[in-house]
């Protein structure tokens, strides 16, 4: 998986990054209900990160959406 950055917005000690998480499901994915075997499906999850900095370090980090887009996951419950 890799991040593709679209826009970086800066205001003082706040940095906002619009980006997407892109990747291909090539390995087993562990979920609470079980393991989803590799599907070969591609994912592209746009998101927005808000960093607040203090003394050169990250004081807070908010990632939106909080829950990743799951549209590429199978509907049925995976089996262990």
């Amino acid at each position, binding site marked *: 998986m890799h991040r593709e950055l679209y*826009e970086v*917005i*800066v*205001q*003082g000690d*706040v940095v*906002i990054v*619009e980006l997407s998480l892109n990747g291909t499901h090539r390995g087993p994915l*562990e*979920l*609470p*209900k079980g393991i989803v075997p590799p599907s070969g499906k591609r994912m592209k999850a*746009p*998101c*927005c990160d*808000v960093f607040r900095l203090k003394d050169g370090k990250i004081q807070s980090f*908010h990632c*939106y*959406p*909080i*829950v*990743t*887009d*799951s*549209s590429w*996951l199978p509907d049925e419950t995976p089996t262990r």
Partner: protein
Amino acid sequence: MADEMSSNDQNKIALAREYFMRADQGRRDVLDLFHEDAEIYFPKFGFGFGRQSFFEMVKGFEGSLEHIQHDYDGLKFIPSGDYLVVEGTSHGKMSGKSWAGGKTPGGRFCNVFKFQDGRISSLHVYLDPDYTGDDEARFRWG
């Protein structure tokens, strides 16, 4: 921060506040705040081009969304150049289930507005559209 804001920043914030209020009230004149060729992004909906696409996005909630209201007092505005980023929460009811951002997992959002000539030229909405947490069981931290 408010003391350091330019009038341009204050205008952007006023416009964003107006957007939230008109959207919550389901007013069609929310489109007047947008450029005709505005770009809209909303999770699962994807990108829409042209301000009418805002209503195409809203149609996705028809029959399930009973009401929504953004929490105006808690909005955090981050203006920068042509952009205005707004972090906040909303509360509402969907398919009989309520959510309240900050108290339930759903209902936190971050909007990235871009302005041109006093109107919105693009709006990217970042949130979990699963407002009432129906999909939580499929995630490790759900």
